[in-house]
């Protein structure tokens, strides 16, 4: 009977491990942990900071939910999503900013001076139009070749932002991007902008939720599991893939428009390939084929940077890099032990 406590311990541990491997538990723990973290950060840094953080979260959440439609639900691992984000941001910047300061320089760019709410639909439509053209070409690729060409799209988009100086001012960037205005209510305060972003986030989440729970979403999942079977059942998979790609790109364009208006300064450095890779890791971290997971991933990502400030002996300029290291290690661990991500429904 000497060995009985040990065996009880072992069996308890085994039971604990199986409970951990069950679907819901990790998801629950992750939710609780991230939300508690958000509360701690808010208490520690004050509400003003939390408002800024919330706006950043909304923009990243729109991006990651939209990318999840492509990566998680349709199974196309795209690393080029930041290109559409950039198109949205530059659309907003070019259409709304007052570039009269530009006249002092030799290379001046066109000036439109549109209001925010007139420019936003144009951003969305521009991103969608580019996505239509790009998606028509990309539709024939699969798996790791798809990853490679989507890298290509991100790099081409970045180079266009950087080198087409007549349109984007290149590395100088465009400043004084307009803040939104509804009637007499000028959305200039941080809190007002957060409310606006949250409304757009709700709309995006609603559309995504409607899409994935409709028959359209079921076809997407069928394409993800086996494209040929979906074709056998008579679905034109090319059309479905193109449609979700364009919708997702339009959401990214919306996020870009909000981002441009939020920072009021747009330059190519916000749209480098690295940001795109971070975005994919957020989606995978949060969970593939799960909208809630994408929200969780975006929140964790935004909070991670603040969490890094707790680490002693870490110079403040390396906070972003430390976050990247943590994200990379998390990605490796997830791929080892939980390939569907924290709250995911689909294993890569």
């Amino acid at each position, binding site marked *: 009977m000497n060995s009985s406590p040990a065996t009880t311990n072992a069996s308890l541990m085994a039971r604990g491990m199986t409970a951990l491997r069950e679907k819901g538990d990790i998801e629950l723990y992750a939710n609780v942990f991230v939300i508690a973290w958000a509360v701690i950060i808010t208490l520690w840094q004050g509400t003003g900071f939390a408002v800024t953080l919330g706006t950043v979260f909304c923009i990243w959440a729109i991006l990651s939910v939209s990318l999840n439609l492509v990566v998680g639900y349709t199974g196309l*691992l795209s690393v080029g999503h930041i290109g559409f984000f950039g198109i949205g941001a530059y659309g907003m910047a070019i259409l709304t900013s007052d570039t009269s300061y530009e006249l002092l320089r030799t290379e001046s760019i066109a000036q439109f001076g549109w209001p925010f709410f007139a420019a936003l639909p144009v951003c969305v439509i521009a991103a969608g139009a580019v996505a239509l053209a790009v998606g028509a*070409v990309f539709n*024939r*690729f699969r*798996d*790791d*070749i798809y*990853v*490679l*060409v989507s*890298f*290509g*799209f991100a*790099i*081409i988009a970045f*180079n*266009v932002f*950087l*080198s087409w100086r007549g349109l984007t001012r290149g590395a100088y960037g465009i400043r004084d991007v307009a803040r939104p205005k509804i009637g007499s209510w000028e959305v200039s305060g941080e809190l007002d902008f957060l409310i606006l972003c949250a409304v757009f986030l709700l709309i995006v989440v609603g559309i995504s939720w409607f899409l994935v729970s409709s028959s359209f979403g079921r076809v997407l999942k069928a394409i993800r599991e086996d494209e040929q079977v979906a074709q056998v059942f008579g679905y034109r998979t090319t059309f479905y893939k193109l449609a979700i790609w364009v919708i997702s790109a339009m959401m990214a364009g919306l996020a870009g428009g909000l981002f441009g208006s939020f920072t009021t300064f747009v330059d190519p450095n916000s749209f*480098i*390939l*690295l940001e795109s*890779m*971070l975005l*994919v*890791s957020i989606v*995978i971290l949060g969970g593939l084929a799960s909208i809630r997971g994408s929200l969780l991933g975006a929140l964790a990502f935004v909070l991670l940077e603040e969490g890094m400030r707790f680490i002693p002996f870490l110079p403040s300029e*390396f906070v*972003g*890099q*430390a976050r*990247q*290291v943590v*994200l*990379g*290690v*998390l*990605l*490796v661990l997830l*791929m*080892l032990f939980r*390939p569907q991500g924290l709250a995911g429904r689909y*294993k*890569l």
Partner: protein
Amino acid sequence: MTNARAYLANRSNLLASVLVALVVAYIGWKVTESPEQALQFAFNGMSVGAVYALVAMGFTIVYSTVWFFDMYYGAAAALGAYGVFYLRSSETLGGLYEVNNPVVNGIFALVVAGVVLWALHTAFYYRLRSRFGEKTLRIGGVILAVCAGAYAGAVLTFPSNLHITLAPTIAIIAAIAIVVCGRALNTRIFRSNLQKVPTIALTIGGIAVGVGLGIWLADSPGSKLYLSWGVSCFIAGSVSLALYRGLYVYMRQRARSPLVMLVATLGILLAFSALIVMVFEPTPRPLPEPFGNETWKVAGASIKGFNVFTIAVACVGFVGLLWLLKMTTFGRTVRAIGDDEEVAKVVGINTTVIIAIVFFIGAVFAALGGLLSGHDTAIQPRMGLLLLLKGWIASVVGGIGNLQGAILGGFILGMIEQFGIWDLAGEWRDVVSFVVLILFLSFWPTGILPRK
């Protein structure tokens, strides 16, 4: 003739042919317009293409063995370049910015110790177990590995005395190489084993040459740069080997698709590039000039001596890799694993060891490409990802999984990039290469020289 007509009847083939004809006509027109400029572009394309070819070859040998995409290669290329910078930072920038971090040295010492332990274990453990007993071997192996790690740490800690710290190692390696090569040559030529007296003579000669080489090396401080190339290639390769043996082996047992591996290695690349930014600052850095600023004039176009050297390295690397893959037992096993890993395992090939060595070789090639391109231009933290993508494109253009295709694709990509930016500014180079990639994937998805 009918064959050609049938080929052109296909719409996409027709489109592709028209495209090729247009490109050839454009380049031909440009060449007749200014042949000197064209020659200059060809030289530039060759020297850029050599770097792409090196990275593509390393990528190909790994990809055609394990059939998943290892994004760590980007980090290996960056490690190669930054390793040289790390060891030679006292000379670049006039000694204004020196970086030598004990934490970094410690980590790489640990990695080297682990790799040495693994190598000793795979090479000697089962062979010597019955003679010495398991415990002795284990303790001895750990002691040797700790010594190797401490030695690696010492080499990294005193980069200005690289030629002295590395002299004994190189002497030992040279002596062993001479003895082994002498024996192998003898068996090849005379078809018999060596007698006792020639063996002793060969051994003494090898030791003498090794000692001589070591003394000469310890006396020539000019060799530090070239030694630092070797050290950084070795370190990039060791990290790759350690990652494979310590991580990818277990991950591949669980992975459902190659995309899992791709995402995991993407995480590794993210972590490595962030660490590089943390250790070295994000600004671009120069590397010291290897052979001075010598340029040669050929028919009105100029080419740097270093670029010729890069091209030569790519060609030598190609020949060496081809020899390794086609003529040796190791190469045959690598190809067998590439064709079917399960069957190779059944036949009795230790696939883990072979693949680990393949990862080492591949990362060495990537690091070589990275440091040569770093000497040519400058180094920056994101160069790794770009080189990796260019190597990937080159191997797709040449024919994925085929070594001849990789070197051909590398040179072709370099040429197309240079001729493509003739009328554009230089910053559109990446756009040109990705457009080339998409065209190739659309019209020739198997590349120029497909794998049989």
